[in-house]
C-alpha cells in the first residue's frame, strides 16, 4: 500500500519477527506430488490400458497433466518469490514473479483471520491463512492470503493477530510459547449455537443447481471415460430399450436420471462442505467473535467480530418455501457479501424454524425479533403489484404482437402473454404476502421479496441514512417506501409500500433522532422551530 511503511517498521529493534520469512517449504513437496499425480492418468492410459496416443481421445488427459504440472511450477515459483513478516505494527507480504506486489495491513486494522485447508493442505499439514482488514467488496481489494503455512505457524499467526494480549513484549521467544499452548488447546467456545445436522441434507438437494451439476458431471464423465476408450453414448444406449419408450418416456427417464445424479452430487457436496460444522461464540481480541468451522476434505474456519455485527437476515427461496428452506447470513461491516465463499453465511441451508431459533440465540435480544408479529401492508400495496404485473404482461403482449405482425414469430406466440398474465398476478400476490415490518426493541424487522423472501433484522442504531420514496403511482395509492441505509451487509434494506400515513412513524423509529428536526409543526409545537440555523444560514433564496 504505502512504500514508507516497511522502512518505518525496519527501524524498530530487531527480533525474530522482524525478518522476512518464507512460506512453508513443504509446499515444494506438495507441488512435486501434484505434478506426478496429474501425469499419472495419461501414463496409465498409454502404458497400462494401451490407448493409442495418436488419436484425439488422449487430449483431455494431456490437458489435465499440463494444467497440473504448470500449476505446480507456478506454485513453486510463487513460493520462491514470496516473503512475509509480522512486525509490531504491520502484517506485510511481498509476492509476485513478474509483477511484484508489496502489501501491508496495520495490525490494529485486522478484522478477521480465517484458516482454510484444501485436501492437499490437510494431507501435508499445511493451512491457508487469510487476513482481512474490513475491506469492502466494492473496493476490489482482497484479503492478504498466506498460501500456505504449516498448521502450527498458521494457528500461532491466528492467535497473535487476534489476541495481542498473549504477546506483551512482542519478542520472538514469548510468541513461540504462545504457539505451543494454542496448538494444544485451541480456544474453547463460550457458547455453541449449532452443530452439523445430517438430516439437513434434504434441504440442500432441492436446488436448481442439480441440473447444472448433473450436466457438468455427465460432460466430464463423457470426456474422461472417452480417453480410456469407453464410449458413454453407446453404454447409455445399451442400458434400456429406448425405442419402445418413445420420446416422452425417454425425456422422463432422462430428467429423472439427471435429477437423481445431480441430487446425489449435491448431497455429497453438503456432507463434504459442512462435515463437523460448528457455529460458536468464542473470545476474540476485544469482545467476542462468531466462529464457524466446517469441512470434510477442505476445512474452513471463519471468525466474525461480534462488535461489527449489525443484524441477521434469513431468506427463503420461493420455490422451496413449502418445505421451509432458508439461508441465514449475518449483516456485518467488513465482510464481502458478493464473495463466492459467502463469509457472512453462518448456517448451512436448513429448516427456517431452526434458523430463526439459532439466529435469535445469536442476537440474544430480550424480545425475540424473529418471532415478533409483523405489521401487514395495506391492500393498496397489492393493487400496486397487480398493476405492475398487468403492465408488464401488456408490454410483453404488445412486443409479441409486433413480432408476429412483422412475421418474426408465428401468431400463436401471442398466447404466451395470455398465459404470462395470470402467472404474474399470482407472483404479485405472493410478493404482497411477503411484505411486513415491525420495530422490536433495539431492532427493526422488515420482510419482503418475491424470488427470495428475506426477513431482515437490523440494529436501529446502525442506520446511517434514511430514505423515503414516493412514485406517482404510490402517491395515488397512498404508499411510501422506506429504505434504511447502513454500512453493513448489502448497504441498505428496503421496506416497500408502507401506508403513507404510517411510513413516517416507521422511519422515525427506524432511525431515532435523524428525522425529528424536520417534522411539521402539527400538534407538537416544541419540535417545530428547527434547530438553530447552524453553519448554513439561509443564503440567497433563489
Amino acid at each position: 500500500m504505502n512504500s514508507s511503511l516497511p522502512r518505518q517498521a525496519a527501524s524498530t529493534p530487531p527480533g525474530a519477527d522482524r525478518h522476512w520469512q518464507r512460506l512453508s517449504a513443504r509446499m515444494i513437496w506438495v507441488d512435486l506430488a501434484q505434478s506426478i499425480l496429474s501425469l499419472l492418468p495419461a501414463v496409465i492410459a498409454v502404458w497400462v490400458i494401451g490407448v493409442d496416443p495418436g488419436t484425439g481421445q488422449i487430449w483431455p488427459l494431456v490437458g489435465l497433466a499440463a494444467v497440473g504440472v504448470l500449476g505446480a511450477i507456478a506454485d513453486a515459483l510463487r513460493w520462491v518469490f514470496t516473503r512475509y513478516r509480522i512486525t509490531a505494527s504491520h502484517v506485510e507480504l511481498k509476492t509476485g514473479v513478474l509483477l511484484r506486489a508489496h502489501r501491508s495491513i496495520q495490525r490494529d486494522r485486522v478484522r478477521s483471520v480465517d484458516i482454510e485447508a484444501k485436501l492437499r493442505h490437510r494431507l501435508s499439514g499445511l493451512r491457508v491463512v487469510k487476513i482481512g482488514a474490513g475491506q469492502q467488496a466494492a473496493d476490489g481489494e482482497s484479503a492478504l492470503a498466506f498460501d500456505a503455512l504449516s498448521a502450527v505457524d498458521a494457528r500461532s499467526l491466528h492467535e497473535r493477530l487476534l489476541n495481542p494480549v498473549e504477546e506483551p513484549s512482542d519478542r520472538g521467544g514469548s510468541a513461540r510459547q504462545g504457539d505451543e499452548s494454542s496448538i494444544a488447546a485451541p480456544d474453547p467456545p463460550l457458547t455453541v449455537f449449532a452443530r452439523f445436522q445430517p438430516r439437513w441434507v434434504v434441504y440442500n438437494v432441492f436446488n436448481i443447481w442439480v441440473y447444472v451439476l448433473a450436466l457438468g458431471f455427465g460432460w466430464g464423465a463423457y470426456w474422461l471415460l472417452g480417453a480410456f476408450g469407453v464410449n458413454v453414448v453407446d453404454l447409455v444406449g445399451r442400458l434400456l430399450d429406448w425405442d419402445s419408450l418413445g420420446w416422452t418416456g425417454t425425456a422422463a427417464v432422462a430428467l429423472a436420471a439427471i435429477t437423481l445424479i445431480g441430487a446425489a452430487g449435491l448431497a455429497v457436496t453438503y456432507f463434504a462442505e459442512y462435515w463437523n460444522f460448528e457455529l460458536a461464540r468464542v473470545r476474540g481480541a476485544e469482545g467476542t467473535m462468531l466462529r464457524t468451522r466446517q469441512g470434510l476434505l477442505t476445512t474452513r474456519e471463519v471468525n466474525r467480530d461480534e462488535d461489527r455485527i449489525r443484524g441477521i437476515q434469513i431468506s427463503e427461496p420461493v420455490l422451496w418455501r413449502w418445505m421451509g428452506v432458508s439461508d441465514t447470513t449475518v449483516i456485518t461491516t467488513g465482510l464481502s457479501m458478493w464473495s463466492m465463499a459467502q463469509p457472512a453465511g453462518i448456517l448451512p441451508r436448513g429448516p427456517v424454524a431452526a434458523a430463526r431459533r439459532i439466529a435469535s440465540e445469536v442476537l440474544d435480544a430480550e424480545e425475540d425479533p424473529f418471532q415478533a408479529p409483523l405489521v401487514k401492508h395495506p391492500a393498496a400495496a397489492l393493487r400496486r403489484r397487480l398493476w405492475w404485473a398487468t403492465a408488464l404482461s401488456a408490454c410483453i403482449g404488445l412486443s409479441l404482437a409486433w413480432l408476429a405482425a412483422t412475421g418474426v414469430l408465428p401468431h400463436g406466440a401471442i398466447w404466451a402473454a395470455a398465459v404470462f398474465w395470470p402467472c404474474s398476478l399470482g407472483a404479485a400476490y405472493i410478493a404482497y404476502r411477503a411484505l411486513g415490518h415491525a420495530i422490536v426493541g433495539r431492532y427493526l424487522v422488515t420482510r419482503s421479496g418475491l424470488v427470495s423472501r428475506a426477513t431482515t433484522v437490523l440494529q436501529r442504531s446502525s442506520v446511517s441514512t434514511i430514505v423515503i420514496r414516493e412514485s406517482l403511482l404510490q402517491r395515488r395509492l397512498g404508499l411510501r417506501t422506506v429504505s434504511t441505509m447502513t454500512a453493513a451487509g448489502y448497504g441498505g434494506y428496503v421496506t416497500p409500500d408502507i401506508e403513507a400515513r404510517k411510513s413516517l412513524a416507521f422511519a422515525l423509529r427506524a432511525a431515532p433522532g435523524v428525522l425529528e428536526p424536520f417534522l411539521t409543526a402539527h400538534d407538537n409545537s416544541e419540535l417545530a422551530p428547527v434547530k438553530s440555523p447552524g453553519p448554513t444560514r439561509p443564503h440567497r433564496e433563489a
Partner: protein
Amino acid sequence: MSAAIDDLPMPDLRPPKHRVERRAIGWWMLQSMLLAGPILAATTTAYILWEAARPWSLVAVIASSALLVAGVMIEPLWRYRVHRWETTDEAVYARTGWLVREWRAAPLSRVQTVDALQGPVEQLLGLSTLRVTTASSGGAIDIGGLDKDTAARIAKELTLIAQLTPGDAT
C-alpha cells in the same frame, strides 16, 4: 408494536428550507437535451435513410420527440418545484426527484466525506453538486444545482462538524 405506531401523533415531514438555484432549471434542460437530442437525431436519420422500416421508425421518432419535449419543458420545471435542501448542526436533509420523489436525511455523526463536485455543464452555469457520503454504499445524499461558492462553503463547514465526531462512523 403496531399499536404503538398507531398511537403516535401523525406529524408530516416538512419540506427542507432552501430551494436550489434558478439556474438549475437551465442545467436540467441542457442535460435532457444532451441525452434526448442524439436519440432524436438517430431516429430521424433512420427514418429518412431506411425506407423499409418507415411505419415503425416513425413511432420511434415520435417517442424520442416526446422524450425531448418532456425532458426540456416539463422535467426541469417540475424538478425545480420539488428539489429542496437543508443542513443543520446535526443533519443533512434533501428532497429530490420529479416522477419519483425522494426524501433523504443523514446525521452528520455518520458522514464520512463532503465534496462539492462540478460536471462540465455545471461549470458552464457556475453550479455545483454537494455530495455527502456515509459509510453505507447506498447512503450518499446528492444536492445538485447549488451555487458553486455556496456548495464549497457548506462542504467546508460540514467537513469540520463531521470531523468532531469520534469513531469510524459506521
